[in-house]
């Protein structure tokens, strides 16, 4: 009899599944999907960024009573950083809420690749802040993909600028040796081409070292680096690969001051496990850490004060957390812009895409939002889906991240033609006629 019950259980579960699926309609609410990852090797990033994102939306709801009266609702969907599950989450959440998903933040380059074409068909903007396709800044080919603030490509040129700065001028780069240690995935490979181009341009030498997922063992790579003795190391790590790299660097006595990481290698969670080995390590970032911003104070007061926080309170103000706040600010501002045009009501993805495309977050606006110093001014257009593009560099002093540079602008003159070329190639492959922007 017990066995038959099992069958019943399975059937029951299936029915419950069906029941949970649709049935969702409430007025004056804007639905934002949260394809979070709370498990797996990269959980720290998923919980930090999405936790803060939800906190910010909660702040808008609690403090301002929603965006012009439109309350935000959201729903989590666990992707475990897996592409297939990410697609399922996208499909599940895209139609929820009265007007469908406002936008989709995959928070994974792999998932971005898997969903952005679907987004273009369904008219759901896919927003990848600081990750995803480098060439997607060309809004003519990618109308529903928004690599806001800065792409890997822009970031990479800023990195080379930083290195040039430290060397005392871009002309000093000639003859220098760089090692690019990258996570062996779409994310890690994204900058190989542009690095090669820049190497040819400035006359430095670059060697690429892939590290297979998850990157537990990098002894061989670092021994090779020891032998190559590069002047600088570029670290494109993710998750556990970062502390491991720093520890191995210590073992081969490579100065950490000469390691420049991408922002996905530059959170507290990336350096703390490496302990003292991380001291001096430099990472790019498009925002600082810390709680000393009015907006985060507000979050603590209105969200954590009411015990509605979405991450552990001690993580507020960390790099991932602040990145999530930026996700929130940019998303909400886009919806604000769109509301001004389309009316103060829940909007569709298509309308929000317009908002994302006509963002203009000025310095004054940033100040009004209480995020001065946290966010850079951002102006997007139909042609340019990136906006900002500037990067700050931060150094780990053994205890916290310290900003060591001002905003360093990306080399847009270099990046833009490359992106257009790559986007055009993509458009040709896919038979897309790029729209015209005017």
């Amino acid at each position, binding site marked *: 009899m*017990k*066995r*038959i019950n*099992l*069958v019943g259980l*399975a059937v029951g*579960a*299936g029915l*419950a*599944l069906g029941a*949970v*699926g*649709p049935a969702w309609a409430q007025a004056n609410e804007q639905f934002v999907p949260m394809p*979070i990852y*709370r*498990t797996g090797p990269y959980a720290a990033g998923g*919980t930090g960024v999405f936790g803060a994102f*939800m906190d910010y939306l*909660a702040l808008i709801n609690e403090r301002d009573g929603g965006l012009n009266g439109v309350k935000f609702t*959201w*729903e*989590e*969907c*666990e992707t*475990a950083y*897996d*592409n*297939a*599950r990410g*697609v*399922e989450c*996208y*499909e*599940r959440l*895209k*139609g929820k809420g009265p007007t469908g998903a406002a936008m989709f933040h995959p928070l994974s*380059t*792999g998932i971005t*690749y*898997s969903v952005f*074409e*679907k987004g273009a068909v369904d008219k759901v903007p896919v927003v990848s802040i600081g990750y995803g*396709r480098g060439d997607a800044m060309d809004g003519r080919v990618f109308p529903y993909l928004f690599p806001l603030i800065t792409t890997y490509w822009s970031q990479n040129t800023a990195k080379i600028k930083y290195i040039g700065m430290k060397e005392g001028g871009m002309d000093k780069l000639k003859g220098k040796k760089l090692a690019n240690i990258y996570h*062996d*995935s*779409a*994310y890690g*490979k*994204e900058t*190989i*081409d542009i690095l090669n181009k820049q190497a040819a341009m400035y006359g430095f030498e670059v060697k690429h070292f*892939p590290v*297979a*997922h998850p990157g537990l063992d990098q002894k061989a790579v670092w021994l090779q680096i020891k032998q190559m003795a590069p002047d600088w190391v570029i670290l494109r790590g993710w998750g556990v690969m970062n502390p491991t790299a720093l520890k191995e660097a210590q073992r081969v006595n490579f100065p950490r001051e000469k390691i420049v990481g991408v922002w996905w290698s530059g959170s507290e969670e990336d350096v703390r496990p490496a302990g003292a080995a991380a001291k001096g390590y430099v990472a790019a970032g498009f925002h600082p850490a810390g709680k000393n911003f009015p907006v985060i104070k507000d979050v603590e007061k209105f969200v954590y004060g009411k015990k509605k926080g*979405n991450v552990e309170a001690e993580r507020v103000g960390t790099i991932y957390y602040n990145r999530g706040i930026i996700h929130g600010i940019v998303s909400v501002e886009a919806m604000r812009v769109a509301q001004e045009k389309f009316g103060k009501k829940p909007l569709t993805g298509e309308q929000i895409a317009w908002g994302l495309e006509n963002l203009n977050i000025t310095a004054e606006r940033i100040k009004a939002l209480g995020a001065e110093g946290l966010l850079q001014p951002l102006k997007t257009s139909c042609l340019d889906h990136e906006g900002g593009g500037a990067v700050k560099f931060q150094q780990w002093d053994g205890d916290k991240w310290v900003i060591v540079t001002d905003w360093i602008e990306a080399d847009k003159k270099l990046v833009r033609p490359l992106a257009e070329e*790559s986007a055009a190639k993509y458009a040709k*492959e*896919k*038979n897309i006629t790029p729209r015209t922007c005017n």
Partner: protein
Amino acid sequence: MLYREAGQFKTSYAKDLAIFPIRQDRWFIALVLIFFGLVVPLIANDYWLKSILIPLLVSSLAAIGLNILTGYAGQLSLGTAGFMAVGAFAAYNFNIRVPELPLIVDFILAGLCAALVGMVFGLPSLRIKGFYLAVATLAAQFFIEWVLTHFGWFTNYSSSGVISAPPMKMFGFAVESAVEKYLLTLGVVLVMALAAKNMVRSSAGRAWMAVRDKDISAEVIGIPLMKTKLTAFGVSSFYCGVAGALWTYCYLGTVEPAAFDLARSFLILFMIIIGGVGSILGSFLGAAFIGLLPIFLNNMAATIGHGTLQADTMANLEHVIFGGLIIFFLIVEPHGLARLWQIAKEKLRLWPFPY
């Protein structure tokens, strides 16, 4: 009462050989087919088609592939996703390099490529078995992933190592909408499942089972070990390869080699454990179970723990439930859901007079 074969006589050899000798079974299968082939496309929404039914069917196909190898031929493999990747990338390359070929031919060629690779990695099975072989198939998994990541040719020199399925055309029709993709997947899966069902009843299938039960005895009674094991690897990988191609074309659209990582191999292994080792039907049941469970739990998490830390617990709970269920099934019913189905059928046969 309803399910009884009394009065149904087998009057010819052909009838004796039928796949579904009982009339009610045939009716039932026909109903299921009508439901999934005609009713579902009409009533299901995009979400159900695109992100539940299609991946479910594709995983079933991969599970059938693994079941042929592990369930029927007794060779444990942890490299399923690797063979799927071969199929996916082969289909892509045939498609863009020889655009004249019809898509279905691409799929078949993809399957053949996977079969070839599978047979190469099956060669060690002639010398080693059991866990040693399982670990050897891991070599295939890692090696294939590496090759596809590191040789730009396979991804048509995409800068990020990602392939994106070109628009599909089948017999002159564009396959674009969810329903069309679903029907294409369903068609391929059905044909191949039927083929598999027949294959395991043929001499090849019986040879596999003999090898599974005791390979030395099988050799003694004149079953050529090499041929049998290699065909098992080949056929199994063919199925996985086609599944991989469908996974790319009909489901994800854009994949990187990491989409076919070890975790996927394990998931497919779980499907056949829970569904039923050595059962075609079990492959479907297992795929459904493993595919739906996380979605179900996830929905529960969303409904119950709305935006609170409970979701965290839920995500971990999912792991616990997964693991627990696998152990539970292995202990309580090592033959999986397929066996439960069989028991239900037997009970039904006697119902309502069990004595």
